[in-house]
């Protein structure tokens, strides 16, 4: 199966935006694991703008393939200037579309990016009052991201057992 990226993915891979650690981040979260070869770590700076919690700055670090790096980079662009409520509703499909369409085998990269974002938002409100729009229960999209992580971990453990 050929792995054809869109020119957009390649462009972002060459020149990612908002790359690197953020020293004054309000919240940091990551999704993925070294074993699955995919980690997206995102940093968000959140401030009140017109009374709304707003993402004023976002950056990322990424361990993974070109699609992973591009997904993380585009996500940080998408959330910048958005209220957290708006950011919560960003879907993996939106990320894939922004990238000119990811190959289907790479969908999990955008799922992981959304997973990292949602994890960061949850973390932010952990010690704050939960806004009404934030569902108490894990959403299907959060579960999906977790499943990507768990799938590889299971695989890995299965192999270790075979090895022993």
């Amino acid at each position: 199966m050929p792995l054809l990226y869109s020119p957009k993915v390649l462009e972002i891979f060459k020149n990612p935006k908002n790359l690197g650690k953020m020293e004054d981040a309000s919240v940091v979260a990551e999704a993925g694991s070294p074993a699955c070869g995919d980690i997206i770590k995102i940093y968000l700076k959140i401030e009140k703008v017109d009374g709304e919690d707003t993402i004023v700055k976002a950056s990322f670090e990424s361990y993974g393939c070109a699609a992973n790096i591009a997904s993380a980079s585009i996500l940080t662009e998408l959330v910048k200037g958005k209220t957290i409520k708006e950011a919560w509703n960003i879907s993996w499909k939106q990320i894939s579309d922004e990238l000119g369409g990811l190959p289907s085998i790479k969908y999990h990269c955008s799922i992981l990016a959304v997973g990292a974002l949602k994890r960061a938002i949850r973390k932010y409100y952990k010690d704050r009052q939960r806004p009404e729009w934030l569902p108490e229960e894990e959403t299907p999209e959060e579960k999906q991201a977790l499943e990507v992580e768990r799938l590889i971990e299971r695989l890995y453990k299965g192999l270790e057992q075979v090895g022993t």
Partner: protein
Amino acid sequence: MSVKELLKSHGTPPREVYFDLENSPFVPKEVVEEMLPYFNKYGYGNPAITHKPGWEAYGVLLEAKEFIAKTICAESPEEIVFTHSGTEANNLAVLGIALKNRKRKGKIVVSAIEHLSVTFAAEYSSKLFGHEVAVVPVDEDGFIDPEIFEAYMSKDVFLVSIQTVNHEIGTIQNIKELVKIAKDYNPDVVFHTDAAEAYARLRFSVKDLGVDLVTLSSSKIHGPRGAGALYVRRGIELEPVIRGQISVEKLWPGAENIPAIVGFKKAAELAFDNFEENVKKMKNLRDMLMEGILDRVPDVLVNGPRGNLRAPDNVNVSFLYVEGEALTIELSLRGIYVSSASACTSRMLEPSHVLLAIGRKYEEAHGSILFKISRYHSEEDINYALENIVEAVKRLREISPIKGVKNE
């Protein structure tokens, strides 16, 4: 998504070095020129038909068999059977013997690091005929321990298939010793070795090794795609695995690919001319690349053995904290073409079975890069590659949140 747009965005780097000889050959001009007349000027007929272009084709097919037979010290050119690839030759070997033994219960023994065309063919035989497949483990460098191998032998083993040289990590196996163990146990066992990675880079004699079936492939020696061969020792019986009109090869129906066979022979001739010199050059470039990487890039693991038991053309290393697919793309943008055994490039989201078999962890396998060296590379190519590898790994490590390493 358009390939044209992707390529436009990629651009053509000022210098290009092709190291991905594992996955597709670079075919030199001399080989292409040798092939050209056979498309429309001479020997373009079917070698089984009675007319001049057919006889010409048959003549050149025989010459290719003679030459290849000589290079592996086969007794007769008739022992060389042409297929269209190494994958086909491996399938013919494993399934051809399995078919012959379809009515009996029995066991096929393979190693944990065989090419998938052997592993999957053996699994298929198990599915079709209920044969048991036993997988011999390897050590951390890919070697089979003869004592462990012996423990896998039993009277019901009818086929053993062990690679001469591993295609990913370059481990040179002691086939002669393994053949002796297998045949001491049961003289009737058929011993197949996939020597596609060994041919034209190591000298070996099928008689000396004592093997019954040997796979060779044109595309692994700078020949074109579309030609492979199976050495079948006289007296070994196997059944064809595909069906159709027999041309020359009774074991592999379909018309032989004469231009590719001509290219295969020419590529072999070029490799065997100045053989020792070619191998020495490859070894020097291999060591220059491998030592250069280890000297200049921190946190690198060598996959496979070092020294004389490593294939002269193989460099395989894992760059920790970076992912291999991203690295193949970063290097491609710099004109260096390599492959990775990372899950991301496998399309199955699973890293290479070879690297897992030698005990590499997932995260170590993900950062693996395979370089294949050839006599067509120069020291300048290696220096250019080294400079860019240092830069490429540094850039991706800067992006990576896993820092086991200081980026200076």
